[in-house]
């Protein structure tokens, strides 16, 4: 979806402001939202692509106005409702629906270190042929999917070169919609800054993106 979340190359967002001695969370509720997102993820009712897509669906004016953890809260509520872990009425009332049974949390405090250390790799050990090899010139496809995609607008149609093959990973576009993993190779692709931005960029500068086979064509 050509949404406001796809920000690379915009110029009107103002200066970067760094906060000195910034805390990890600015308010206790931010930490709780973060922790609830991780803990409910242990139910494995969604994947990282679906979670990102939920945040991308926040309307643009709100997306720009909301803080990071406000977006996480809104996305989490939609995941919980959409995947059937809680009902809309329960969010409204803050109480479990009458007669609903009590589940057993899949993540306990004792399991937190192990679960964190294990992570949730989206690399897949399946034999999939690589469409491209290191050094090969490629063009990022001109596509405009209306759902989730990890091919930013600023790279579409641009000429680059394969820098390195990272191996096989879950393809996000369909995975975000629970349509399957479609594992394929991901490559580090180098784009000259001038190819992306024209003469205003320095000739030696570049931007590297990690792109899936489906995003690329031979050039």
């Amino acid at each position, binding site marked *: 979806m050509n949404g406001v979340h796809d920000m690379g190359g915009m110029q009107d*967002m103002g200066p970067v402001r760094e906060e000195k001695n910034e805390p990890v969370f600015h308010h206790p509720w931010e930490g709780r939202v973060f922790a609830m997102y991780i803990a409910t993820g242990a139910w494995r009712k969604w994947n990282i692509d679906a979670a990102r897509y939920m945040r991308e669906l926040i309307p643009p004016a709100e997306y720009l106005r909301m803080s990071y953890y406000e977006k996480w809260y809104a996305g989490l509520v939609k995941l919980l409702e959409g995947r059937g872990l809680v009902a809309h009425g329960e969010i409204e009332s803050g109480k479990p629906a009458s007669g609903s049974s009590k589940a057993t949390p899949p993540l306990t405090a004792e399991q937190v270190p192990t679960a964190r250390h294990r992570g949730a790799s989206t690399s897949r050990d399946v034999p999939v042929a690589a469409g491209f090899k290191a050094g090969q010139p490629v063009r990022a496809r001109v596509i405009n999917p209306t759902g989730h995609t990890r091919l930013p607008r600023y790279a579409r149609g641009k000429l680059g070169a394969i820098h390195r093959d990272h191996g096989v990973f879950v393809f996000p576009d369909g995975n975000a919609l629970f349509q399957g993993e479609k594992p394929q190779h991901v490559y580090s692709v180098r784009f000259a800054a001038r190819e992306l931005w024209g003469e205003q960029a320095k000739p030696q500068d570049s931007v590297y993106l990690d792109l899936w086979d489906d995003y690329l064509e031979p050039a």
Partner: protein
Amino acid sequence: MQSTRRNFLTTAAGAAGAAAAELSASAQDHEHEHGHSHQVVPSDMALRVKSLESLLVEKGLVDRAALDALVDTYENKVGPRNGAQVVARAWSDPAYKQRLLTDADKAIGELGFGGQQGEHMVVVENTPGVHNMIVCTLCSCYPWPVLGLPPVWYKSAPYRSRSVIDPRGVLREFGLELADDVEVRVWDSTAELRYIVLPERPAGTEGLSETELAALVTRDSLIGVAKVQTRRQGGAA
């Protein structure tokens, strides 16, 4: 089946929008009071989150002690000190540095770091002629095991938008002026690879121990928006 999924997403989109619109209405009031728009908190955000937490606990969907442990982990146990240790080891041990640049997961794992949002790591090396910086233009991907959770500026629209088109301008806002002939490489984290920069070791640090070196390495230098300075350089700057 497919249409059910589509319905879910359509419904979710609408509802997320509604929730967002509500949030932003109260955010605007608040913004007016304080005059700075980043990290403005709607007055009822704390209440909403508290309500959601008690609901999830009551339904047995989350364990409250697990939430406490997660907050504690990212507030106190995981942070840029981890990444600083990796860099100090690389500066002190050429064989480790080589492993770090060729198989970052393994090398970082040797120091006990790895896992969630750092399952697949790449380390890019700064030299006198090459400056690297890390961004995620599409969301806010960040290597949690070695840097902790990202600061607000990294997740902000200004950084996400301009890092790729005007990296030198962004670096200037951080007080870092690069020479014209330096090559800038920006790494946009569009997939599940996570990046850190291996900064240049500052001159005059030859006698320092690994622990002393690690103390010089800042979070910003690991993202590539700053150079590592010795205490003396830092004081003079």
